[in-house]
């Protein structure tokens, strides 16, 4: 279970960190506004400052439990969290293995895994969809539109 307060604080902290990173790297580009024009870092610097200040405000609001959604105490219940993980974790694994086995094998495996294991679909149906997906990708992208999808380190090892 995740409380709304924790989620607000996390979001504000994340945006705040991004803001600090923006400020730091824009200082490298130079900040200034003169008759020679506006320096490259000026606007990013300003946006960075706005992000940091805004995040601090949101952080305060979140921590104090104020703001538009103050009535909601719980943001994500544990069963919701399980469902979220059920979608996101396989997707993240899918993305992670693409460089290794390539888009085609990864997508086939991903589709098969999420369809067959929760036992919502029959294994046969899962197999069919898992085989059709990479085939459709290959025909549409690689053949029709000449977008070469990643073949992965495995395919390279086999000499593709």
């Amino acid at each position, binding site marked *: 279970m995740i409380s709304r307060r924790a989620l607000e604080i996390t979001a504000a902290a994340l945006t705040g960190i991004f803001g600090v990173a923006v400020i730091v790297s824009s200082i490298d580009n130079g900040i200034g506004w003169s008759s020679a024009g506006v320096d490259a870092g000026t606007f990013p610097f300003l946006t960075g400052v706005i992000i940091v200040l805004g995040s601090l405000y949101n952080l305060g609001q979140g921590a104090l439990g104020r703001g538009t959604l103050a009535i909601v105490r719980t943001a994500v219940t544990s069963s919701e969290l399980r469902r979220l993980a059920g979608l996101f974790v396989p997707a993240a694994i899918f993305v992670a293995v693409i460089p290794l086995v390539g888009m*085609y*094998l990864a997508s*086939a*495996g991903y589709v*098969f895994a999420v369809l067959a294991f929760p036992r919502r679909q029959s294994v046969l149906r899962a*197999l069919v969809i*898992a*085989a059709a997906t*990479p*085939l459709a990708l*290959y025909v549409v992208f690689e*053949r029709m539109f*000449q*977008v*070469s999808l990643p073949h992965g380190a495995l*395919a390279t090892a*086999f*000499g*593709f």
Partner: protein
Amino acid sequence: MKIVSKLLLSTTLLLLGGALPATAAWKPQKPIEFVATAGPGGGTDNLARAVQSIITKYKLTDQPVVVVNKGGGSGAEGYVYGKASAGDPYKVIFGTSNAWQQPLVSKVAFNYTDLTPIAAMAQDEFLLWVKQDAPYKTAGDFLKAAAASEFKMGGAQSKDTDEVLTRMIEKVAKVRFTYIPFKSGAEAAVQLAGGHIDAHVNNPSESLGQWRGSTQRPLCAFSAKRLPQGPKVTTSEGWSDVPTCVEQGLAISQYEQPRTVWLPGKVSPEQTAFYVDLMKQVQATPEWKEYIEKTSQVDTFLTGKAFDDFIKQDLEHVKQVAGEQGWLVK
């Protein structure tokens, strides 16, 4: 799962055309990727696609050729990609003099030495353009007026070829310009037509339509001799009627932008030789001549040592300008 992957592997094998027996001279065994360091529609992209269509038409190689655009960061995206693909002879990078100029003036994560030079295939010329109804007839008139008030000079990108040339004019003619960078030469041309800037140094193809439409005209060309005669652009004039800048007292005798072709680093000499030869074959076709003429470029072919020398010479030159302007990155 296993069956699927096996099936998939064998279908892919079949569809990709299978492996050919290796011969002494290197030959591509899988599809070749042409990486254009420009967005779709840009000059470099057009070149890559023209070469692709010629190769396909004459079947100069058995393998399919695919064009990929990586024009982000003024082309840096494509070069960085080339650097990351070291040792992969299936990526051919199409660029400009950006390959060695950009690392001088901005902190990009590549240098031209990370790539293997193949050839410089075509040269774009530069001209000095003013608005049609501007009072100056020659470059001399223009510079005299520029000395009196600070003119606004437009161009494509910052610290790139257009600005380098602008700064060279400043130095030679002892004037000051305000340089305003736009996304592309085409944009600068429209800004000139609208009277928002005073001049620009576009390539012929970037302003051809504008010249025909009498919204702007060239004063002089930055080349050693007049441009080759082609069909008339306006009713009375063609490219060869434009005087050289030297003729008009602006002593910049040569300034051009080559279209360059590269392989990633760490490829074998046989692989390099294959592509040099491939580009030579492309250049011998009538379609290539037609492409060069229609885009108003100059046909050249520099490879090997001649190309290296060209890069070194240009690099010295740009280094000097960049050094004077304080652009060099530490």
